[in-house]
């Protein structure tokens, strides 16, 4: 192959990489043997720091060490006796020549060290210079720098390049950015309003302390853990790994130090006196696939899972593609094939073999410790009061239709009752004294879904109940009901608001509350002496035209019934899951190198391979009499001297905040990866991370309180030439929301989000026929109640047939570890947000919310509020006009097509004062906002 001329410039750089470390395997290794000596004794005056450098000699780079110093050089490769370096460290006779200088307090070199230097020079003085394997430097920010240290590094580079950074994002954008980045949820209206007063710092603290922080960042971690709820491959049966998900959420919320976080996940089962939670943590590596297909070779798929555990560990903690060494010594990074199998040997001894293996039973809430507080349920007080039936006189509706008396002394509305009909009844009683009235609403077969109301779903909205005696209103002190639909309390029947009232059929979590008998009690301010006169009861239904009470009975009590007392909530049995955990075999399996990675070809000639770590990455695994286990491996990964784990970890945190890591190839810190854009910053953060006890929350706080993070994300046309990729971070980047967060944001905007944390997966509605393409059909029991509106991360994940939204928006398939999601932008995404009934429901939810919260507002106010709820900002004039015009055009169109409008308007909207057409047009507006790029983007 003919090499282009340019190639030659790179040959010196490429050759050592191509030849690989094996060339030097029996030789002195610079990073292991020489760098510590030079670093300790020489770099102070002959290192990277120009200001401190003496005699214009630097020894941290080979060029510097070999440079001509005037007829001689510090290092002459192959010729130790010609090398000034050796002469000077040995010049004990002449203190003015001796290095390090006797007064430097550096101490002299030992004989052993000198001998190492000699051998190293003799061998040609090779340097190893790959940055990622070098120790994390304790980089300092000048004391004069009083701002956030992150900005020091970023602004320094910008300044050097002559770039003025962008200004801060406006506060609306910033709050939305912070909320989405830290919790994955949109800021509420209240949070938006209080942000200017609360200020940035306390807002950051609030978000970091939010239990949703663990969800947001737990999801990132679960990507790396390749978490899923099914076994994978073709059969893809269910598994119960959610206790592990709970563990991750809790660990992040508790800011479990990352070293401990690592140890518990890789070897929680091996910890002495392990807790149950630590045992559950070891499920990390049980997220590998299991092939349940008949005729599978157990050993083949066991080996597959061990390989996956090795590769995942390499990618997640070391940022290295160790997988290459499965078949051959790594071509670029210093990982030999033998070393690969040394890592393999750590993971080769667990009991599971393409099988469930060891499990731990966990109850819901057990790991998170977030047992929901028992919500007090109102007792029904009337059993303790003495209720007496009445006799009805002249029961009529305002439309003139009768109320039919039933055998049980209840009244049933006539089928021909008018819209918004109201009732008037005279109730006579033998009681002399009446203290309270009870209204019982009752199901009846003649009513839709058995009632008790006349609405299509059996609901009603009773907007007013008035009691008069002898033409004078009776004052009601209070009212209570055994059940109220959220937003429709019984108290609504007492006020002057014609739109508020009592309803019963929506929003309850218990099925038993639907289409069932209910009752409300109205307590008189003062007991009434009846003197044989009837009570005149009127009932109004002014909110929704077809939402009448269908069948009811009135009863009276001479005594005041007690106020409702809370009774303990229904005791719901906590659900349980058996989570798969790691379990070591009593006797380890033998590990052999596989020829070309093929498990059927163990290379027994080269002997059994014992577990050990990678020689190029510090520190060496401690000498131990016993065979090292996963626990030792985990401790090695988080040893303060291991340079990769902290770098890789803080780099990934950075990546989530800017869309790109300081090291762009976050999954490859090897020689083929890209070098850090801000090496000083990377090491500053890494060092601080470890020094501050591996607290991830502190790193999060440090980053998001920097100016760099808070800058505007608007593009900078002026930087097209200088820094088109924004590597220097003159501005923030716009980042599309992750798949789950696309859903979460829409749930937030509509106000329908069920914020419950943790527990087993949920099954929101999905289109039929999703499983037409999988071998085994899945039992997707669509969730009802709050589980229908849980966050996206709880959607039950079948590897062979993921929830379509997740797949469309680039959630990984969790077959293997995913350290960085791709971010596509496709027509299928457009179709999903535009047409998925689940999204339409949320657009309708947002519309209902607008109508509910702004009952008498005009379209201008509603568009503004929709923007605040969905985009956390006020619309621009242009946007406002666009949407107003759009609204009016659709409304005018719908005005001539009530049938179509009725399909978009929900029952709650139809019950409201707006016309079908304007309700439907407002749904169109909400739908349009949810479909903007802005909505699914964190700016």
């Amino acid at each position: 192959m003919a090499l282009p001329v340019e190639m030659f410039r790179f040959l010196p750089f490429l050759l050592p990489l191509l030849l690989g470390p094996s060339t030097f395997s029996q030789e002195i290794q610079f990073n292991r043997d020489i760098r510590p000596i030079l670093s300790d004794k020489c770099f102070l005056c002959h290192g990277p720091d120009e200001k401190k450098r003496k005699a214009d000699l630097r020894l941290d780079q080979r060029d510097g060490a070999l440079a001509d110093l005037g007829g001689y050089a510090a290092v002459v490769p192959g010729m130790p006796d010609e090398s000034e370096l050796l002469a000077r460290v040995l010049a004990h006779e002449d203190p003015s020549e001796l290095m390090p200088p006797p007064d430097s307090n550096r101490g002299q070199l030992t004989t052993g060290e000198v001998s190492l230097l000699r051998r190293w020079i003799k061998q040609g003085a090779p340097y190893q210079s790959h940055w990622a394997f070098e120790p994390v430097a304790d980089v300092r920010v000048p004391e004069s720098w009083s701002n956030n240290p992150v900005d020091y590094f970023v602004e320094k580079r910008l300044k050097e390049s002559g770039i003025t950074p962008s200004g801060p994002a406006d506060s609306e954008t910033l709050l939305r950015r912070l909320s989405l980045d830290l919790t994955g949820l949109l800021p509420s209206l209240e949070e938006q309003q209080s942000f200017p007063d609360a200020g940035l710092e306390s807002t950051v603290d609030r978000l970091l302390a939010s239990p949703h922080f663990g969800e947001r960042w737990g999801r990132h971690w679960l990507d790396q853990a390749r978490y899923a709820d099914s076994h994978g491959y073709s059969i893809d049966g269910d598994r119960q790994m959610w206790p592990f998900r709970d563990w991750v959420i809790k660990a992040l919320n508790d800011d479990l130090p990352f070293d401990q976080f690592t140890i518990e996940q890789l070897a929680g089962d091996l910890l002495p006196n392990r807790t149950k939670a630590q045992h559950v943590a070891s499920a990390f590596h049980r997220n590998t696939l299991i092939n349940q297909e008949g005729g599978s070779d157990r050993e083949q798929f066991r080996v597959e899972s061990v390989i996956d555990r090795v590769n995942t560990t390499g990618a997640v903690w070391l940022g290295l593609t160790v997988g290459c060494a499965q078949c051959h010594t790594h071509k670029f990074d210093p990982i030999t094939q033998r070393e690969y199998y040394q890592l393999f040997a750590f993971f080769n001894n667990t009991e599971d073999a393409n099988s469930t293996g060891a499990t731990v039973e966990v109850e819901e809430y057990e790991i998170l410790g977030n047992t929901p507080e028992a919500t007090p349920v109102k007792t029904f007080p009337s059993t303790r009061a003495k209720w007496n039936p009445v006799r009805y006189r002249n029961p009529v509706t305002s439309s003139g239709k009768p109320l039919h008396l039933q055998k049980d002394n209840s009244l049933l509305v006539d089928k021909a009752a008018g819209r918004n009909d109201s009732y008037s009844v005279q109730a006579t009683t033998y009681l002399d004294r009446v203290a309270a009235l009870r209204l019982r609403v009752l199901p009846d077969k003649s009513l839709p879904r058995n009632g008790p109301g006349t609405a299509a779903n059996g609901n009603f909205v009773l907007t007013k109940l008035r009691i008069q005696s002898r033409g004078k209103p009776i004052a009601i002190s209070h009212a209570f009901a055994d059940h109220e639909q959220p937003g429709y309390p019984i108290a609504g029947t007492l006020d002057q608001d014609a739109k508020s009232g009592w309803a019963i059929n929506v929003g309850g979590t218990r099925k038993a509350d639907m289409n069932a008998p209910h009752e409300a009690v109205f307590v008189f301010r003062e007991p009434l002496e009846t003197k044989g006169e009837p009570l005149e009861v009127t009932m109004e239904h002014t909110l929704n035209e077809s939402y009448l009470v269908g069948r009811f009975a009135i009863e009276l009590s001479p005594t005041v019934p007690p106020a409702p007392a809370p009774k303990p909530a229904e005791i719901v049995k906590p659900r349980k899951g058996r989570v798969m955990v790691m379990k070591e075999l009593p006797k380890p399996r033998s590990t052999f190198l596989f020829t070309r990675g093929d498990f059927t070809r163990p290379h027994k000639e080269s002997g059994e391979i014992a577990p050990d770590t990678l020689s190029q990455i510090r520190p060496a695994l401690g000498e131990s009499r016993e065979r090292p286990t996963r626990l030792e491996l985990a401790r090695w990964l988080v040893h303060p001297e291991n340079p990769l784990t902290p770098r890789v970890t803080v780099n990934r945190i950075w990546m989530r905040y800017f869309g790109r890591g300081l090291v762009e190839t976050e999954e490859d810190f090897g020689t083929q990866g890209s070098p850090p854009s801000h090496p000083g910053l990377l090491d500053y953060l890494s060092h601080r991370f470890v020094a501050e006890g591996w607290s991830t929350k502190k790193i999060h706080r440090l980053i998001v309180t920097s100016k760099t993070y808070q800058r505007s994300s608007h593009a900078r046309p002026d930087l097209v030439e200088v820094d088109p990729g924004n590597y220097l971070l003159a501005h923030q980047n716009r980042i599309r929301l992750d798949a789950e967060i696309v859903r979460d944001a829409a749930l937030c905007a509509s106000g329908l989000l069920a914020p419950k944390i943790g527990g087993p997966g949920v099954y929101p509605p999905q289109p039929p026929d999703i499983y037409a393409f999988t071998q085994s059909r899945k039992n997707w029991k669509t969730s009802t109640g709050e589980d229908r509106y849980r966050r996206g991360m709880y959607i039950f994940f079948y590897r062979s047939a993921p929830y379509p939204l997740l797949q469309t928006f680039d959630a990984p398939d969790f077959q293997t570890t995913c350290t960085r999601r791709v971010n596509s932008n496709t027509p299928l995404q457009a179709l999903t947000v535009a047409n998925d009934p689940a999204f339409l429901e949320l657009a309708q939810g947002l519309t209902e919310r607008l109508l509910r919260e702004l009952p008498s507002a005009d379209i201008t106010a509603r568009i503004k509020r929709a923007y605040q709820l969905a985009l956390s900002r006020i619309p621009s004039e242009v946007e406002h006009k666009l949407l107003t015009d759009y609204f009016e055009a659709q409304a005018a169109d719908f005005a001539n097509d009530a049938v179509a409008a009725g399909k978009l308007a929900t029952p709650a909207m139809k019950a409201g004062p707006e016309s079908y057409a304007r309700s439907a047009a407002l749904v169109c507006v909400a739908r349009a906002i949810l479909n903007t790029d802005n909505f699914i983007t964190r700016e």
Partner: protein
Amino acid sequence: MNDHDHVKNWLAEPTRRHFFRDCGVGLGTIALNSLLGQLQARHLPVIDPAQPMDARIPPLQAKAKNVIFLHMAGAPSQLELFEDKPKLREFHGKTPPKSLMEGKRFAFLKGNETLLGNSRPFLRHGQCGMSLSDQIPHHRKIVDEVVWLRGMTTDVFNHGPAKLFMNTGFQAPGRPSMGSWITYGLGSENNSLPGFVVLQSGPRGPRAGNSLWASGFLPTSFQGVPFRGKGDPILHLRSPEGMTRKRERRFYDAVGALNRARLEATGDPEILTRLNAYEMAYRMQSSAPELMDLSKESSRTLDLYGVTPGQPSYASNCLLARRLVERGVRFVQLYHSNWDSHGGPGETLSKDFEKVCKSADQASAALVLDLKERGMLEDTLVIWGGEFGRTPMGENRKTTGRDHHIDAFTMWMAGAGLKKGYIHGETDELGFGVVNGKVHVHDLHATLLHLLGFDHERLTYRFQGRDFRLTDVHGRVVNEILA
């Protein structure tokens, strides 16, 4: 030049970089980037991020533009369809020679099985003299149109992993499928339909599910889009009830205008891509139903395939495949089950096998004939076959069937750049192994890419520090079958 062109122009450069970054094509260092860029630029697709599916010209001369892959899920028995083995009949019931069994692994065989002679009568057909059993009479019409690959081999013997291997070149899930690789390389010629479409028929879906057409680490723009046989072909294609086409146009206009307003405010090129994506979504709403509507096909065509309009079937999928390719869709893949003839209920080598043959025979042949008649076979490649073959030994279940066999099976290919009526490869007398003309799955992939204008070693994608390709580190173009 309108204002959006203006925005577009100054965005063009960073946009491209942005995409390369997200695609992982970005190389380690700027230096290496320029170096390797010079070496590879011609062979790596240059993708407009706003239109990742725009048609691209391949780096080498291409014979084929489109591919239709007819995947016979469950693995058809080559010994009941294509491989007439007199010796196997002769030794029927005998223990197979030890030498042939050594070191072999099977999914279900226990080791005491005996040889099972061909259960079907065979005859030679056409000028090439290809032997076909009585089960696929319609294939007689295409014997001299196709290349017969009798020496196929693969690496894995379970359905899921083997299907993955056939589709992605790797036995575990997570790699891009060939359709993804091809659309990554070539984009698609139709901008109102997906570039990579999956159709499915038969009693059950293929094992391994979505990962068979997943884009793996490639951007999801390149993943296969399953069209459903019933209802709307694409998920969420249908507008909400009450939204007429006119109202939808208003909706798309409003969203577009809001997005343009944001584009002007932020200057983010991703918004351009989203604008285009929404427009394509709108177009798909009419183009996809139009595609599925077979009413304009002549009765002659319907009869040729054996299609009953309104009834989803393998036959209607074959016809849809032609319609898709006709509209410029790059890669169409059909999965048809169930060919898993182990013996026993639902999987007998008698009735059940006859049934699946009957369902697949006519339409498979019809597709080749129809494409030829329309001149489309000139630049369309049709591939037919399962994920592996079946054993010469019988497998004893309730009835006798055949187990999975990876060392020798038959596939056929037809169309652009290939010989016609050519038999490639030969197996031993008992059908255990390939004697000559072996074509490994990786070789099939290499050949496929070759015909589409790619060097399979150079159509790569960098992921987690490594340049991946469809053929991993293997593959050889099967020059013998090229015209």
